[in-house]
Each structure stands twice: as structure tokens, then as C-alpha cells.
């Protein structure tokens, strides 16, 4: 059980690292958020799953189980709010962008 937990925790740290590399390498705020939400959310969820396997179903395990759905909803809603906020604030899409359907829409 402990070995499975360690494997999950190591995978999670690896994905968090990928997310951070993406945060530095990708060109604009929208693409950076892509890597920040996806890699970091699943990486952290993987760490929490590792905690569940490591401790079993006692208090730490239960807290980890509750934290996973909370993290999912919080990360997705935060990403959505950041993207929309950045767009309304006037941050331009990067040079590589090929399409922008949102440009002519009345923003609320």
C-alpha cells in the first residue's frame, strides 16, 4: 500500500513540474493557464490520491478524499475567471494565435 502511495505522489510531483515548465515556456497568459490548470490540478490530485493510499481511511485519508472534488471545481472555476478577466482587461492573444471568435462579442 505504501509503495502505491509513493508511486502516486512521485507521478503527481512530476506533473506539477511539467506544469511549472509550461508556465515558463508557453507564450501568452491563455496558454500558460492551460498548463497551469491541467497539469497542476491532476498533479495535485495524484498527490492526494497517494496520501489516501499511504494513510488509508483515517482522518488524513478522508480529508484527501474531500479535497479532490473541491480542488477540481476550484481550479476549473478559477481558470475560467482568470481567462475571462484577462480578456476583458485587454490582454492580447499571442502571436501564434490563428483564430479569435470572442473578439466581437459584447462582454458582460
Amino acid at each position, binding site marked *: 500500500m505504501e509503495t502505491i502511495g509513493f508511486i502516486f505522489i512521485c507521478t503527481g510531483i512530476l*506533473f506539477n513540474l*511539467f*506544469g511549472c*515548465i*509550461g508556465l515558463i*515556456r*508557453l*507564450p*501568452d497568459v*491563455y*496558454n500558460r*493557464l*492551460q*498548463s497551469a*490548470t*491541467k*497539469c497542476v*490540478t*491532476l*498533479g495535485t490530485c495524484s498527490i492526494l490520491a497517494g496520501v489516501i493510499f499511504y494513510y488509508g481511511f*483515517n*482522518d488524513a485519508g*478522508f*480529508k484527501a478524499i*474531500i479535497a479532490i472534488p473541491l480542488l*477540481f*471545481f476550484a481550479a*476549473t*472555476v478559477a*481558470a*475560467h475567471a482568470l*481567462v*475571462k478577466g484577462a*480578456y476583458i482587461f485587454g490582454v492580447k*492573444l*499571442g502571436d*501564434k*494565435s*490563428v*483564430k*479569435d*471568435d*470572442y*473578439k466581437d*462579442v459584447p*462582454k*458582460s
Partner: protein
Amino acid sequence: MKYIAIFILSFIFWLFLTFSLDLSNIIIGVVASIITAFIFGRYFLKDVIPFLQPQRYFWLIVYLFIFTWECIKANFDVAYRVLHPAMPIKPGIVKVKLGLKTNIAKTILANSITMTPGTISVDIIGDEIYVHWIYVYSENPEEYSQRISGRFEKYIKKIFE
């Protein structure tokens, strides 16, 4: 009635979160639950009939498996794009038509889109959702609607509508 339901739910949630039965913990939990019920009571569900239909729970479980799989794929996708020396990205914001009616279904679909490969939902206006896509595969609206939301829409329709 709504307020009492929210109070009970949030108190049970608090008990799981703290995982101890000290008197001080319970008092804090009761106070916090009362505040939560007072603020969010009016947003609670209007009717409970959908909660008593077992086929919805079945589809929810199926959906959770599909969602987890897509989520893992999303991570490998982003990791590949990030670590590739040439960074194969072609970002853009596209407009996708939704076939869903209720607000909760739209919210869940937007959240699912954010967690799937290369897409973040930017805004929902009416029944159209604007999605930032890290690699725009095609210019054809029907094709990218299928790629972005087609996988989830039928399950979400069965669960929430």
C-alpha cells in the same frame, strides 16, 4: 425546508472535514453551517424528483470514468506540448454550440471542457460557449464542436436534464 437541508448537508460535510467530535469543533461547525444555510439557502434545488431516479446515478458513474480518462489524456497532451523543443501550439478562441438547456448542465460541461485536452472555457453567452484551444485542429465548426463537447454532452444530458 431548503435552509434546513443545506444546514444538515454542510454540517455533515464539516464533520467529515474535521473528523473529530470535540465540543468546540461541533460548535464552530453549527455556527458555520447556519451562516452557509442563511447565505446559500435560496440557491438550493427547486425539486428533488431527479435525485430519486437511479439511472442518473448510473450515468454519473460512467461519466466519472470517461472524465478521469480524458483528464489523464489532457495531462499527457499538455506535457507533450510543453516538453517538445518546437512547442507545437496553434492557439485560438473558437465558438461552440451547446445542446444543453439548464444552467447546472452548462456549468458542468464548461468545467469538463476546462479539464480536457487543450481547452479552457472562456465564456457562455446564451447557448454558445467560447473556448480557448491550444491547438486548433480544424476550421470547420461542426468538426471542432464534436471534438470539444461531443464526448460529454450526451452523458451530461442524461445526468442533469
